[in-house]
């Protein structure tokens, strides 16, 4: 398998105060294939390191340890031309639909600049056609959208313009950082469906950063769950989300408020993060874990393979074999090949 993007032993620490360091991300190795477009969710709460991981993947920040390789080349050591290709082929979608537009310009600005910079069109009319086509793909009408200022459009429309921008560039990988958390519920489904369609029809790999496991389940095939910078559990979404094994994933899944008549929220009080003592070595989740063993406090748990398509970093599974490789993707389920019917379905 040729790799599209590889994170090799990537870690990020920040200096915090005098001789203190905070670990934002610890030792992540992940390979995404070039041949088969994938959909991977990176899930966690605030402080989990998921945004840090996204920004390292996008090349916005450099890892403290390890490296990011795009098409085999270390991103930090790329030449100017290689960097341009990388920038074009790995595109972000950000969370805040308000902040991603420069309030001084119309929204056309954010669509026209990349067409020019990356020389996607040879003439103005071709550029215009490309832009209009991208807008239509995401369900926006060019005549209602172009020429407007950001504050004239709703949050949902703005976010769709951002997706259109990503589509325009025909990237190989889209890193979407909580793309719908600030968008209304009824519009979320539409935008997420568009992302999934981009993957199925245009072969674009998606890395979906989120704290919402339900949407992760819906659009991704595989997931990595992070807790305070460490991988807690990773594997196919069918395994990890529908049958979570790591105590933290279990806590996350049971806390999802589902619109179901039978209340799934139990009555038990969860130990709040601030109430528990901080763990300095050993498993980060130990202070809040209902099943914590002595060893959890002193040793970081290694990753165990619970099934071929799931691993968990938890001492509870110490009798099971270790994960086959440092690469998290080794424990992923293969991407679903879209059925011909699905592949032919256009966007609304």
């Amino acid at each position, binding site marked *: 398998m040729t790799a599209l993007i590889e994170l090799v032993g990537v870690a990020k620490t920040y200096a915090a105060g005098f001789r203190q360091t905070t670990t934002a991300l610890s030792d992540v190795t992940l390979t995404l294939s070039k041949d088969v477009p994938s959909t991977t969710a990176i899930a966690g709460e605030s402080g989990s390191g998921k945004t840090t991981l996204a920004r390292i993947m*996008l090349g*916005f920040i450099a890892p403290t340890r390890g490296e990011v390789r795009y098409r085999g080349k270390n991103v930090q050591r790329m030449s100017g031309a290689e960097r*341009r290709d990388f*920038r*074009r082929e790995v*595109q*972000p979608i*950000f969370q*805040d639909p308000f*902040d*991603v*537009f*420069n*309030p*001084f*310009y*119309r929204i056309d600005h*954010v669509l026209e*600049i*990349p067409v020019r*910079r*990356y020389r996607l069109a040879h003439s103005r009319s071709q550029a215009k056609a490309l832009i209009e086509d991208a807008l239509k793909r995401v369900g926006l009408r060019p005549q209602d959208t172009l020429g407007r200022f950001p*504050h004239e459009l709703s949050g949902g429309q703005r976010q769709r313009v*951002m997706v259109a*921008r990503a589509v325009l560039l025909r990237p190989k990988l889209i890193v979407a950082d909580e793309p719908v958390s600030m968008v209304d519920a009824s519009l979320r489904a539409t935008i997420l469906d568009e992302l999934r369609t981009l993957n199925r029809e245009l072969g674009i790999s998606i890395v979906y950063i989120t704290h919402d496991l339900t949407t992760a389940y819906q659009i991704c095939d595989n997931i990595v769950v992070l807790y305070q910078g460490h991988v807690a559990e990773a594997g196919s979404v069918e395994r990890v989300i529908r049958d979570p094994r790591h105590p933290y994933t279990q806590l996350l899944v049971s806390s999802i408020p589902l619109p179901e008549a039978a209340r799934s929220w139990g009555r038990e009080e969860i130990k709040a993060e601030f109430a528990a003592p901080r763990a300095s070595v050993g498993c980060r989740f130990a202070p809040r874990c209902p099943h914590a063993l002595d060893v959890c406090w002193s040793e970081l748990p290694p990753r165990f393979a619970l099934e071929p398509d799931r691993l968990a970093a938890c001492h509870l599974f110490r009798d099971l074999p270790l994960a086959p490789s440092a690469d998290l993707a080794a424990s992923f389920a293969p991407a679903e090949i879209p059925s011909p019917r699905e592949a032919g379905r256009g966007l609304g």
Partner: protein
Amino acid sequence: MSGGLKGLRMKLAERRIGGVLILGLAILALIVLFSLVGPLFVDAHNAHVGAMTPRRPPSFDHWLGSDSQGRDMLTLLVYGTPNTLKMGLIAGIIGVGLGLVFGLVGGSLGGAIDTVIRVVADALLTVPAIAILVIIAGNLDRMSTNIMALVVASLSWMFTTRTIRAQVLSVRERAYIEVARANGESEWEILFREIMPNLMPFAVASFVGTVGSAILAVISLEALGLGALEETTLGNTIYWSQQSAAILRGYWWWWGPPIVVIALIFLGLFLTSVGFDRFANPRLANRA
């Protein structure tokens, strides 16, 4: 701001260009008009000593009367106002120009350059322009309005630098800058195309403030008699009126008009500054 004429109409409709801004700009425009058009109606010679009978109160021929040296007050005002304004403008333009450059450089480059700019700006902020002017005035044979303007200008850039620098640091972190990078823009393009336009409101606000404080500084100096005494300015007129005890002697037409004009200038600047805030920040516009 982008948007042209249609944008202007829209902004008027949104009440972003509110009454306060229009009033402020109108007052300033009036004063500028006065300075530009006035010389066509008065004879410059009337501003010289002995041009007419001294100490005359306002009359039909001489609308604002004359001072104790026989100079026509109206002519003095007509020629004095633009001189005063000129000093404020020079200080404003140079001060804000320098401030923009230093603020942009410091904010975007960071590191040692930023530290140097910041430390120098902070240190100079504590120096009162008037004190420097007094020292210089005491050491020069001839003071001129241009020298005064330049000295004030050299001490007017610091506040703008700090404001612009702070804005650059803040804007740099915004998501649209990262989008710009993802769009393939180079760092220079990002600075000039993405960051700079968002600094304009701050630059304009700084300009208005700088002009105001510059005029205040020069008038203070002139009122003490340390200004460019050979030139006609509003502050000098006040000084001369003090020297002749005009208040005690009841020559209100001597010290009154310059003060009224100065007050109008500051009123205009103040209203423009307040009104501009509403323009630059649309969220304030629709509040009652």
